[in-house]
């Protein structure tokens, strides 16, 4: 979705989908995105950091629904199977091993992408059926400013991508503003979480590590053709290396959170940024308006 296609909500302000990413973990994505959501009206907050969702600590939602998220995986009935190997040959991920001599069918769930090609090519009735397998939980609830939606991947699951894309498909309301707290890193889950975003906020810390990983996410954001701006967290006024990179890359610095002991103390108690720094709520509101006005 491009900026030009954004809708307006009841109050007549534009509704935007804003994803918050970082590259490096621990730069303050969740700390920033929760307060951004809490400073707005009529907003949906998505915690898509599905391996360790912790936005709820700051948002403090009242959870009303817990939905198990399932994928379809094959189940082979070895009494019906003729061990023709069509399924294993068709599987692009080598998730099936058929051993005709031993009359054995082995399935490796961690390689399966739930594409369904195995059941499509199986020539035998009911030899290979698709069954549901839970990979995580979607928790839904409310907070003072709107809806809270969180994905939590089961421990041991190899990829958060299906859960993230499932949440975006089923729960992202095109008519409403959404703030999306993305996973850290630069891999597929991050890409999945920003696909539907109109704007991507990169939260960085002014350290060489923060810069190195930010460079990687900048490439992703550029490849996906998204508008972007950077929030510098833990800013001590000596963020030169970060600022210089951003100036050269023509990426604006849209917000700064100062380095302060008071913020750290408050953060460690689960108190959000907007309840810690006086006047910051107005600044976040204005930031949202600036972003939605292009």
């Amino acid at each position: 979705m491009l900026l030009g296609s954004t809708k307006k909500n009841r109050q007549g302000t534009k509704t935007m989908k804003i994803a918050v990413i970082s590259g490096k973990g621990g730069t303050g994505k969740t700390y920033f995105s929760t307060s951004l959501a809490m400073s707005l009206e009529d907003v949906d907050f998505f915690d898509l950091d599905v391996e360790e969702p912790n936005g709820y600590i700051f948002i403090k939602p009242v959870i009303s629904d817990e939905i198990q998220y399932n994928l379809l995986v094959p189940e082979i009935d070895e009494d019906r199977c003729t061990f023709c190997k069509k399924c294993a040959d068709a599987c692009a991920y080598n998730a099936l091993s058929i051993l005709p001599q031993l009359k054995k069918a082995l399935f490796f769930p961690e390689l399966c992408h739930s594409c369904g090609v195995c059941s499509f090519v199986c020539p035998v009735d009911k030899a290979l059926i698709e069954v549901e397998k839970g990979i995580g939980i979607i928790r839904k609830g409310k907070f003072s400013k709107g809806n809270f939606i969180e994905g939590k991947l089961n421990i041991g699951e190899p990829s958060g991508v299906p859960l993230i894309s499932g949440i975006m498909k089923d729960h992202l309301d095109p008519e409403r503003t959404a703030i999306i707290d993305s996973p850290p890193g630069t891999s597929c889950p991050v890409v999945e979480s920003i696909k539907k975003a109109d704007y991507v906020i990169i939260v960085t810390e002014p350290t060489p590590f923060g810069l190195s990983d930010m460079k990687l996410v900048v490439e992703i954001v550029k490849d996906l053709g998204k508008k972007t701006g950077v929030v510098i967290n833990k800013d001590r006024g000596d963020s030169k290396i970060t600022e210089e990179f951003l100036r050269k890359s023509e990426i604006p610095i849209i917000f700064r959170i100062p380095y302060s002991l008071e913020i750290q103390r408050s953060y460690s108690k689960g108190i959000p940024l907007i309840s810690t720094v006086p006047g910051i709520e107005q600044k976040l509101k204005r930031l949202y308006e600036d972003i939605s006005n292009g």
Partner: protein
Amino acid sequence: MRAFIAISEDNGVESKIDSRFGRGSYFMVYDMENEKIINVEANKFRDEGHGVGIKTAGIAVEKGCTLVIGAQPGPKAEQVFNEGNVEIFVMTEGTVSDAVRKYKEK
């Protein structure tokens, strides 16, 4: 007994054992009793993204091998070998003839 050996070159019994099992360059099926090469073929799966060990292990079982000589197979390939009652003899360097000798000495 038929042995399945992942090798990095096709040079008879002097072929070097590949340092990786599933992504070995060639596979050799070797007759341990008669000390004879049964056949050698190129590994056409070696550049696939995932689950190469599973495919390779499946081929070994399919070819009736009950022994695998070479680099330690990954856990998924090992699962296939366990199902097929295939013995795994880990050896990461040397030639096929070294490996056969070592196996017989053990």
